[in-house]
C-alpha cells in the first residue's frame, strides 16, 4: 500500500538523502502550511518527505546541563503546555499558546513553522528573545544556528537546499519571566505586530531581551535596546527611546492586515504596554 511520491523515512539521515535525491521534494511536518499551499495550488511537490516517523524529531527533552531541546515535530499544543518552559523561556510558551487556535495547535509544529519563516508568525520573535538555537541537518552534516541568524528574510531562513530543522535548543531557563504580546485583527490571525520579552532576574538587577515580530522580514532586536531596558525597564525615557529605536529598525510592509505606517506607529505603544506589564510583575511579584 503506498502512494507514489510519498515517503516516510525513519531517520533524519534517510530524510536528508531523500531531499537530495527525490525530485521536487518538500518536507511535510504538521501540514498547516504545506498542505494549505498545495490546496491553493501554490506548491506542487512531486515528492513529499513526511517527518512523522522520525523519533529523533519528537518530544521535549532535557539536555545535559539542564537546557531543553524541542524536537522539530513538537506540536504547538505541546510547546504551549510545557511546564519546563519557565522563567525566561516562558516567552516561547506564551507565543505557542497564541498561535492560531486549539485545532491548528494540534497539527502545526515548531520545525515546520520556523522553516517557513512567515515574518508574522509567533515563534520567530519569541525564539530570538529566548536566545534559542536552531538545530539543522543536511548532507554536509549537523549544525546549529542562533535564532537571530536563522531568520534571514521574507520567507527565507539559513536553511540551505536539502536541509531541514531537527530541533530547537534553548538555554537553561533563567529565573524571571517571559511575555509574548500579540496584536492581531482577530483571534488566531497572524500578528500585525508582536512583542516578545524575556526578563531574567539577576543579582542586583535584570537582563532583558526584546524582539519585535510582524514588522519586517525578520524579528527586530537591538542589543543597545536590551541593555538600556536592562538598566531602566520602568523608566519612561528609556521606554520611549527603546520604542523609537525599535520602530526605526523595523522594515514593515503594507499588507491585508495593516499598513507599514500603522505598524511603525503602534510598535512603540505595544512595547510600552508590554514593558508596563513587565514592570508591574517585577514590582509586584
Amino acid at each position, binding site marked *: 500500500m503506498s502512494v507514489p511520491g510519498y515517503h516516510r523515512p525513519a531517520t533524519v539521515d534517510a530524510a536528508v538523502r531523500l531531499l537530495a535525491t527525490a525530485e521536487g521534494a518538500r518536507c511535510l511536518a504538521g501540514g498547516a502550511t504545506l498542505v*494549505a499551499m498545495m490546496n*491553493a495550488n501554490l506548491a506542487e511537490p512531486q515528492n513529499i518527505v513526511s517527518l512523522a516517523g522520525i523519533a529523533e524529531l519528537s518530544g521535549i527533552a532535557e539536555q545535559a546541563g539542564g537546557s531543553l531541546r524541542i524536537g522539530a515535530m513538537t506540536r504547538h499544543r505541546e510547546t504551549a503546555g510545557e511546564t519546563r518552559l519557565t522563567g525566561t523561556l516562558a516567552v516561547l510558551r506564551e507565543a505557542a499558546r497564541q498561535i492560531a*487556535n486549539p485545532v491548528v495547535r494540534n497539527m502545526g509544529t515548531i520545525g515546520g513553522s520556523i522553516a517557513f519563516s512567515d515574518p508574522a508568525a509567533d515563534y520567530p520573535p519569541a525564539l530570538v528573545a529566548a536566545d534559542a538555537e536552531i538545530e539543522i541537518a543536511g548532507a554536509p552534516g549537523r549544525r546549529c544556528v542562533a535564532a537571530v541568524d536563522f531568520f534571514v528574510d521574507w520567507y527565507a531562513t539559513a536553511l540551505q537546499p536539502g536541509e531541514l530543522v531537527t530541533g530547537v535548543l534553548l538555554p537553561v531557563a533563567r529565573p524571571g519571566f517571559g511575555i509574548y504580546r500579540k*496584536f492581531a*485583527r*482577530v*483571534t*488566531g*490571525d497572524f500578528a*500585525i505586530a508582536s512583542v516578545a520579552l524575556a526578563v531574567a532576574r539577576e543579582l542586583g538587577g535584570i537582563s532583558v531581551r526584546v524582539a519585535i515580530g510582524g514588522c519586517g522580514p525578520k524579528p527586530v532586536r537591538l542589543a543597545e535596546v536590551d541593555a538600556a531596558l536592562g538598566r531602566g525597564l520602568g523608566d519612561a525615557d528609556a521606554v520611549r527611546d527603546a520604542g523609537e529605536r525599535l520602530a526605526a529598525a523595523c522594515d514593515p510592509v503594507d499588507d*491585508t*492586515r*495593516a*499598513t507599514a505606517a*500603522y505598524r511603525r*506607529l*503602534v510598535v512603540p*505603544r*505595544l512595547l*510600552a*504596554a508590554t514593558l508596563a506589564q513587565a514592570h508591574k510583575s517585577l514590582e509586584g511579584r
Partner: protein
Amino acid sequence: MNDLPQAVGAGLRRIDVREKVEGRAQYIADLYRPGMLHGAILGSPHAHARIKSYDIREALAVPGVQCVLTGDEFGDHRMGAFIKDEHAIAKGKVRYVGEPVAAVAAETEAAARLAARLVTVEYEELPAILEPEDALRADAAIIHEELQAYFKVFDAGSHANVCSRTSLVQGDAAAWAACDVVVEGDFTTRPQAHVSLEPCGALAEPEASGRVTVWSANQSVFRVQANVCESLGLPMSQLRCVTPRVGAGFGNKMEAHVQPIVVKLAMASGRPVKLILTREEDFEIVRARHPFKLRAKTGAKRDGTLVAREVEVLLDGGAYADDSPGVLGYSLLMSSGPYRFQYMKAAGTLVYTNKLRFGAFRGFGNPQVSFAGEQQIDEIAGKLGIDPLALREKSMLRAGDRWFGGAKIGSNGLAECIDRVRKASGWKGRGSLKASAPGRKRALGAACTAHISGLLATGAIVRVLEDGSIVLNTGAVDIGQGSDMALSQICAESLKVPVDRVRLASPDTDGSPYNWGTTASRVTYTTGRAVVAAAGEVERQIKAHAAEILECDAIDLELRPGGQVGIVGVPEKAVSFHQISARAHWAKGGPIVGTNSFVYDGPSVDPKRAVGIGVPFPQIGVFAFGALVIDAEVDEATGKVEVLRAWSAVDVGRAINPVSVEGQVEGAFVQGLGLALNEEMVWDGARLVNPSLMDYKVPTSLDVPYEINAIIVEAPEPDGPFGAKGVGEIGINVVPAAIANAIAAASGVRLNHLPLTPERVLRAILGEAG
C-alpha cells in the same frame, strides 16, 4: 377555545436540526448523481476587455473532458433582477477580473480544472473603471454599451455608466431655516463579503423527459429558475429547481451564481454536472456588500426635535446591476431612520465599475446609511446636551404614522425597544462605567433602526392527507434562519394540531407555489400570511364537512387541539381530521386543499406626500423596529475596539419561535461587528487582494462578547401571521453606528469611515487625518 398556544410563541426544537447535529444533512456539495461529471470555470484575467477569440483544442484534449463551453455556445440572452444586463457567462466582453469566460465538464474535478486553465482566450484590453467617480467622467470607457436596450423593470434613468438613479423628497426645503443646529458629513463604507460557511455550488441533471433538474445552494428556487431560463433562453417549464440544505445565504445566494453555467454544461454533455466553488472563487465571482459614498446632513431644533435631513449617495454597483438598483432605492428609503422629519430628501446614483458585482447582503443598504444617520443624531444630541436616546424618542415615529415616502406604519414597538435597552444596559449610569484596564476608554453607544419585512409574491398550499396529517408547501427556502419551523408552527397553530403533524414539502418549482425568496426579512411575514390564509381555507372546508357530519351549522363549530372539530359548548360532539379527510377523499367534496397566493401591495410611495423618481419597488412591506445599546472599550494604545456587552431589542410583532428570533438577532449582531470593525474586501487596482479566509477575517468566538442580549418586543402587526413581522436583517443595521457612537463617547473622536480599524481609530485619537 384553547388559549394556550401549542406552537406559536414556543421555542420549539427545529425540525431541520436533528440531521444537522448528526452530520446527515445533505448540502449541495454532499449530493452525487450516477454518471456525474465535475465542472470548472476559467475566469477572466482582465477587468475590462473585448473577447476576440477562443481556442479550446488543448482543453478538449485533456483526458476525461466531456465538453468545453465558451460564450459562443450561449445565446444572447440576459438576466438581472432589475436590469437585464448579465449573460450566463461572459459573451463578447469581460467586465471584472474573475468573470467566468469558459466552463468545462470532466470526469474528475482535477481534469476539469486543468482543462479550464488550458482554454486560451484572446482579449483586447479596454480601460478599466475602478472607482465610481471615474465611471461618471465624460470620457469614461463605457462598460455596458447596450445599456439603453436592456430590459428594465422600472424607470431607471440609465445612461453611459449610470445604471440607475433614484430620489425621494418629502416636505419643504424651507424647513432648514427652522434648524438651530445642523451637522454635515461625508461617510464611506467598504465592501463586506458574506462568507456563508458553505461556498456556492450547483448540480444539474438532464432528465429522461428532456427537462433539466438543478439543485443548488440558493435562497430561492424560483429566482434560480428565472435566472437560468432567462440567461439560457429556456422556457421556464423546461427547468425544475429544487434545493438541498443550504449552508447560509445572507443575500449572496439570492440571485444566480453558477447555476446557469452548470445547467448548460449538463445540457451540452447530456450528463449530470456538479460544480462547487472554492472559497476563493466564492469571494471573487459571486457578490458582496456595496461600498457606499454618502453625504448626509441632519438638522434639529434647540429642544432636540429633528427637522430636516438630506442624504446623497454614490453607489458602486460593480460590473452588473444584480440587486443594486434595489439597494440604492431601499437605502434611500431607509435613510430617514425611524423618525419624523419635516423635510427629507434622499437621492443617489448607481454606477457600473469593472469590479465584482455588489448585491444583496443582510441590511440591503440600511447599515450603510444608518452609519451616517445614527451618528449625526448623536452628534446633534452632543451639541445640544441632550441624552441621545431621549432625543430619538422625541422624534420617533409611532404606529399609524407614515414612513418617509408615505407608507403607513402598522405596528411600532420602538418606544418599548428603547425603554428595554435603556433599562437593561444601565444607560442612565453610563457616565460612571469603568474601563477594564489603564489606557482603555469605555462607553455605551446607542442607535435605533427600522427595517421592512415584505415584498413581492408568495403562496401556500395546505393539504390534509388521508390520515388527517398535514402537508405544507410554500416554496420558501430555509437557509438556516428557521423558516421551516416557523411556518410549520404557524400552520400547526392555525389548525390547532401538534407541530409534528405538519410536514413541510421541500421547495420545488414544479410543485410549490411561487415564493420570491428568502430575503428582505420576508418569509415569516409574507409566507406566514399565506399559510394562515391557506390554513383558514382548510379550516373552512373541514368545518363544512363537520357541519354535515355533526348536523349543525359551521358557525357553531370550533377547532380543538390535536386535529379535532367539535360543537362549541358540547365537548362530546367531535370528529377528527382523519375522519373528515377520509370522507373528503372517498365520499364527498374531494381532498381538502387550502391555497393562498398574494403579492404584497402596500405602496412604498404616496405621490400626495412625496415625490419619487426611479423608485425601484412600488410596494415594500411592513415595518419592524429596533434599538441597540453596546458597551465598548477603546484600547488607546492601538486603537482596537472591543465590544464587551450588547443589548439589542427588536420589535418582531410576534415571536413565532423566540429561540430562532434570538438566534437571528445574535447572529446579525456578530456579522455587524465584523462589518464595523475589521471586514473589508480590498482591491489592488482591478484585482481582489484578500479572497481567502487567511486574509479576510470574520469574528471568531473570542472576538465577540458572550453577553449579546437579544430582547424581544412584540407590537403585533395587524395583518401579520399571529402578528409577526420579520427579523432576519434588522439586527445588523445599526451595529456600526452604535459602535461609532460609543467610540465618540469614549475617546471623543468621530469616525466616518467603515471599517473602524485600529489604524483609523488610533489616528483619529492622535488627531491625524485618515
